[in-house]
């Protein structure tokens, strides 16, 4: 019992050290003059699809794991509340990231024939960052949702 505490402290120190090392490695692989999307370039990409239309919160929901071990294939789900009729449906869904090499991830175009706006796919995440999804409705309104994802092993940076 007496040596349990120091042992735990050692383990904790090791874990902190390991986490720091992993963080440092991620930083080094990101550094050498590589272009990366920024919150500003993400905003520019959003503007390219939505113009200056106001962004409403709600109706669209992103499903992403909050913590990702491998950024190469992250399951992404998107659901939008819509009757999906000729009168009212989702026209398009766009997905963006803040810190991947470029902000666009995927754009979907759908309509009443889709029946629902319920899509899943797999995406790459180069870093811990915010993922943003925007739904464009047939009435011209835009709806957004964003989630932050913590990535422990980044995608697309290793040499082949």
């Amino acid at each position, binding site marked *: 019992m007496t040596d349990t505490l120091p042992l735990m402290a050692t383990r904790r120190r090791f874990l902190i050290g390991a986490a720091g090392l992993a963080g440092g490695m991620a930083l080094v692989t990101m550094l050498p003059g*590589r*272009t990366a999307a920024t919150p500003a370039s993400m905003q520019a990409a959003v503007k390219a699809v939505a113009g200056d239309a106001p962004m409403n919160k709600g109706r669209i929901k992103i499903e992403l794991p909050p913590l990702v071990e491998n950024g*190469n*294939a*992250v399951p992404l789900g998107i659901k939008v509340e819509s009757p999906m009729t000729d009168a009212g449906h989702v026209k398009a869904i766009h997905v963006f*990231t803040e810190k*991947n*090499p*470029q902000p*666009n*991830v*995927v*754009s*979907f*175009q*759908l*309509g*009443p*024939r*889709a*029946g*629902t706006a*319920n*899509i*899943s*796919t*797999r*995406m*790459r*995440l180069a870093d811990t960052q915010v993922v943003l999804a925007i739904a464009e409705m047939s009435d011209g309104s835009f709806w957004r949702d964003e989630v932050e994802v913590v990535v422990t092993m980044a*995608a*697309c*940076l*290793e*040499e*082949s």
Partner: protein
Amino acid sequence: MTARALINVPPKAKRGEIIGIKSLISHEMETGFRPDATGQPIPRNIIKEFVCTYNGVEVFRAEFFPAMSANPFVSFTTVANESGTITMTWTGDNGFFATESVAITVE
């Protein structure tokens, strides 16, 4: 250039039923952002477009960017309104093209 594509569509559905469709294709989706062993960037080689048609009518389309994972997987839904053929096509860099079709019976 041969790619293996898998699509999953229920063979039978009731008229008006919303059915789930899954698609998966083998493709490296090389981002264009990775360096090779000499530090030179590996050229981009991705699928850029995925289209699903139902008896010739487009029901779903996706534009892919390098942030899509290798072997792109997409699942979505459509309304089964008549018997016929559901076709999916993938087009991309370096003249990549693949297509896959499946029959559906609607009662």
